[in-house]
Every structure is written in structure tokens, then in C-alpha cells.
């Protein structure tokens, strides 16, 4: 029984009622699922022609794997660059110089407030007009830049809160052995802060993977785009979307699990509180 303060421990009669409720709930769920399947079947969405393509290796080779690769490549670039961006501006917000702090704060708050999709559309058009990279890199660059700026700002907040939430004694100890503010930050607080935020950084990957799907609106070849191509070939839009949804969910659940394992592993290596989720982002 969970130790929730909200409820009393149930007695025998309540337990029996719960059991009945459980059975009832499962039946209700199955009935709902049945209705959906029947309706899909009535609309011809469950025919073999629409689903057999997913049993063929070529479908995975030609569509789904390149799509997943596109998603993961964009996510990998973005999370690495977001880490760099976050470190720079997170430290900027901890700086002793008022001007550096102010600039960092404005940058971080700006990119946190502007929707990723808006930024993506803007950067994409910017690249088309000013041609800063070869045309076949427009979409990827726009996706990576937009994801980097937003997630980098989230990481900057993680860095800042990772350092500020360390016990005060850590900074004081550093200063008392004669280190400067900057030295204390670099050699005592930051290493622990980064360890404390590492799991949150991994779970930020979930956000990046999900948001990379926005790239399909500017034509970036990722899973959702590939589902579109696949369904143009096999006329199976609904099945294709269901399959890529499953892929997304599996990938993200693996990433979440890794983040949790990492958090457990690192808890002994820092004096700061280890968080799994990025504060302020909450994986949205």
C-alpha cells in the first residue's frame, strides 16, 4: 500500500469493493478498445494491404529507419549544442559581472519564451534568404538551431539551479582555502552541479526527440515525414502514424529509464539534489 497521506488503509469490505472496481475498469477499457477497433475495421483501416508493408524489411530500410535516424541525428546535435549553450549562459547568469548576468538573463528568457516552431520556421526562412548553408542542409540546420536555442536555455537554468542548490558550505569551503570566486565555481561547484543535472540532461533528450517532430513542418526528413512518404506509397496513413507513434514512445521510454538509472548512479557523487526532470521544462 502506498504511503499516501490522503487515504486510510482499506478494510476488508473496501478491499472487496476495490477488486470489483478493478474488474469493472478493465472491462470498460477493453470495451472502449473494441469499439475503436470495430470502427477502424469498418473504415477499412485494418486490411492486410495497409499493414503488411510493416512486415517487410524494405519498408523499415527505406522509410522508418532513415526517419528514425533523422530524428536521432537532429536530437543528438541539438542536445550536445544545447549542453554547450546551456553551460555558457548558465555560467553567465552566475557571473559576478552585472553586464554578463544581464545579457545572459535576457538571452535565456527570450529563447525560453519563443515557441520552438516559430523559431524553426524563422531560421528555415532565414537560411533560404541568406543561404548560410547548402540547401539540402536547410531543414536540419533550422531544426538543430531552434532546438538548441530553446533547450540550451532550459539547460542554462539547470546549470544555474544545479550550482545554487548545492549546500552553501561547498562554496564557502572553496573560498576559505583561498580560491577565487571563479576558481570555486569552476573546480568545486560546477563539477558537482553538472553531476547533479546529468540525469535531467538525459531526460531533456526526450523533449528534444519529441520536438524534432516539428521539423516535419519545414520538410526535415524525420519519422513523421517518413510516415507521410510511406503512406503516400502504400495509402496507409493511419497505420503509418500508429507505427511511428509506437517507435517514438519506445525510444522516449528508454531515454527516461536511462535518466532514472543515471540519477540513482550519481546520487552518491554530489552533495546537490539529483533531479531526473528538468525544472521549468517538465518534458513539455
Amino acid at each position, binding site marked *: 500500500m502506498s504511503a499516501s497521506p490522503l487515504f486510510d488503509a482499506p478494510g476488508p469490505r473496501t478491499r472487496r469493493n476495490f477488486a470489483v472496481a478493478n474488474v469493472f475498469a478493465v472491462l470498460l477499457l477493453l470495451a472502449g478498445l473494441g469499439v475503436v477497433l470495430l470502427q477502424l475495421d469498418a473504415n477499412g483501416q485494418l486490411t492486410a494491404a495497409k499493414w503488411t508493408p510493416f512486415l517487410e524489411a524494405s519498408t523499415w530500410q527505406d522509410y522508418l529507419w532513415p526517419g528514425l535516424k533523422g530524428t536521432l541525428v537532429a536530437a543528438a546535435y541539438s542536445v550536445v549544442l544545447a549542453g554547450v549553450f546551456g553551460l555558457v549562459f548558465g555560467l553567465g547568469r552566475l557571473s559576478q559581472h552585472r553586464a554578463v548576468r544581464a545579457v545572459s538573463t535576457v538571452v535565456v528568457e527570450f529563447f525560453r519564451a519563443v515557441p520552438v516552431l516559430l523559431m524553426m520556421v524563422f531560421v528555415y526562412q532565414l537560411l533560404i534568404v541568406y543561404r548560410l548553408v*547548402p540547401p539540402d542542409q536547410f531543414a536540419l540546420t533550422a531544426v*538543430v538551431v531552434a532546438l538548441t536555442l530553446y533547450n540550451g536555455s532550459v539547460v542554462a537554468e539547470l546549470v544555474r539551479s544545479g550550482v545554487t542548490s548545492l549546500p552553501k558550505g561547498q562554496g564557502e569551503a572553496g573560498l576559505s582555502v583561498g580560491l577565487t570566486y571563479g576558481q570555486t565555481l569552476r573546480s568545486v561547484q560546477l563539477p558537482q552541479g553538472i553531476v547533479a543535472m546529468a540525469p535531467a540532461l538525459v531526460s531533456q533528450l526526450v523533449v528534444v526527440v519529441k520536438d524534432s517532430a516539428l521539423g516535419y513542418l519545414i520538410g526535415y526528413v524525420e519519422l513523421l515525414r517518413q510516415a507521410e*512518404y510511406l503512406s*503516400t506509397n502504400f495509402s496507409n496513413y493511419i497505420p503509418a502514424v500508429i507505427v511511428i507513434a509506437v517507435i517514438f514512445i519506445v525510444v522516449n521510454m528508454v531515454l527516461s529509464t536511462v535518466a532514472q538509472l543515471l540519477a540513482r548512479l550519481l546520487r552518491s557523487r554530489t552533495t546537490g539534489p539529483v533531479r531526473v526532470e528538468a525544472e521549468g521544462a517538465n518534458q513539455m
Partner: protein
Amino acid sequence: MRRSTLTAIALASVAAVGLTACSSEEGGDDEKVTIGIKFDQPGLGLKSGDSYSGFDVDVARYVAAELGYEEDQIEFKESPSPQRETLLQSGQVDMIFATYSITDSRKETVAFAGPYFVAGQDLLVAEDNTDITGPEALDGKKLCSVQGSTSAQRVKDEYSAGVQLQEFDTYSKCIEQLAAGTIDAVTTDDIILAGFAAQEANAGKLKVVGNPFSEENYGVGLPQDNEICEDVNAAISKMIESGEWETALARNAGETYTPNADLNPPTPAACA
């Protein structure tokens, strides 16, 4: 502290652009010809696995052969509508066959050979539909098109003010809704619609109305400083005279589709 922060910012922003830029390959050397097509339009330019099919693709292959390229020297590259001019200007593609309408504003930045086909805006409806005969018969109907194209708005402004517009980012979503009956018609160029209607899953379920109400001259997009425009035009004329043009059209757009007969096959215009 301050300087290192600024350097790091500069580095990060350079890295953001640079990392993605270095993996690209420049096309357009003497050995190969890079041709821009659509990858997602059945009947015109469709990528299926690693093979390409469609009317645009067939014309592109014919023209490339006439220009002296072997089949294995042709490289197809996706050219989404907003990127077509940039792809040509930067030399990433040598030619574009991608439902590319010849317009004066585009001629300011790129050159055109052709036209090799004259399409017209039309409507795609369910096979058993009899009341939608043209753009004026859409009052109170639901019409689907893609975002960023003016075709749906044109129907509303010029023909049926009472039409309801649904916009998606791709045609396949429109087709999905049309097949399910939640919208009444899809509008864009007739040959694009015919390509969808000719797909196996839609055969006998969807039809093109066949009452085109605009004129879109599909041209071959070329860089402005090209030397092949005349040769491309000659190849197109030869394809039309040999009957290969007609065969390719029937093979890709389906037996039931007939293009605007007054305007097709077109005569390529003189190169600028």
C-alpha cells in the same frame, strides 16, 4: 570571464551552423547530372524505396538521355517547393522537374526551358459524386488544399464564396479525409490530383472533375547562366513528336485522365 564567455558564445554559434554544413556534397560535376524532383507526389515524382517514378521523372530521364547522360549518371534530389530557386542558384541541382510553374517573378532568379506540360487547377471528388462539376458548384461544400498554396483561396474568392476551406500541410492528409468522406473535394493542379486518383488504393473511388480553371505551365527549372536550355527544349519536342510523351502521361496519370487538350502537348517557348 567575460571574454571567455563571449568566445564560447561565438564558438557555439559557429558550431551550430558548421557542424551541419560539412557533411554535404556538391553535385553538378561533369560525370553526373543532378535533377531535382518531388519525392511525394504519386504520378509526378514519387520515391518508392530507392526507385523513382512519375511523369516528371520520365520526362527528366528522357531529357537527360538526349543530353547524353546514361541512366546511372542521373542523380535525383528532392526539391521542396520553397527551396527550388535556391537549389538551382547554388548549383546543387542542374535541372528541376518538379511541378514547377513558369512565372515572371521566378524568371527573375532562374531560367526555364519548356513548358513540357500545361496543368490547370481542378477538383478531385469521390467517384459517385455528381453535384460538384466545377469551382462554382462548391457553395456549402468542404474543400481541402495545402498550406501556402493560393489555390483554395482562389476558389473562395472567385467562384464559391460559401465554400469551407480545410488546409493541411500535405496532400496525403487531404486525400485521407476525402476517402473517408469528411471533406467533399481536394483542389490543386489536375495532374497532381490524377496521380492520387490513379493510386491502387484509390482506383475506382476518386475522380478528377476534368474542368480545369487555370493554366500552369510546367517548365524545366535551370540556372540562369545555363547553356543547355535549347537542348532541353529540343529534347522535349522530340519526346512529344515520338509519342513517348503521351505514353508516359498515360502510364503515370491513369487511363481515365485526359489533360487540357487545347493546351497539350505544349510547344516549348524560346529560350531567353
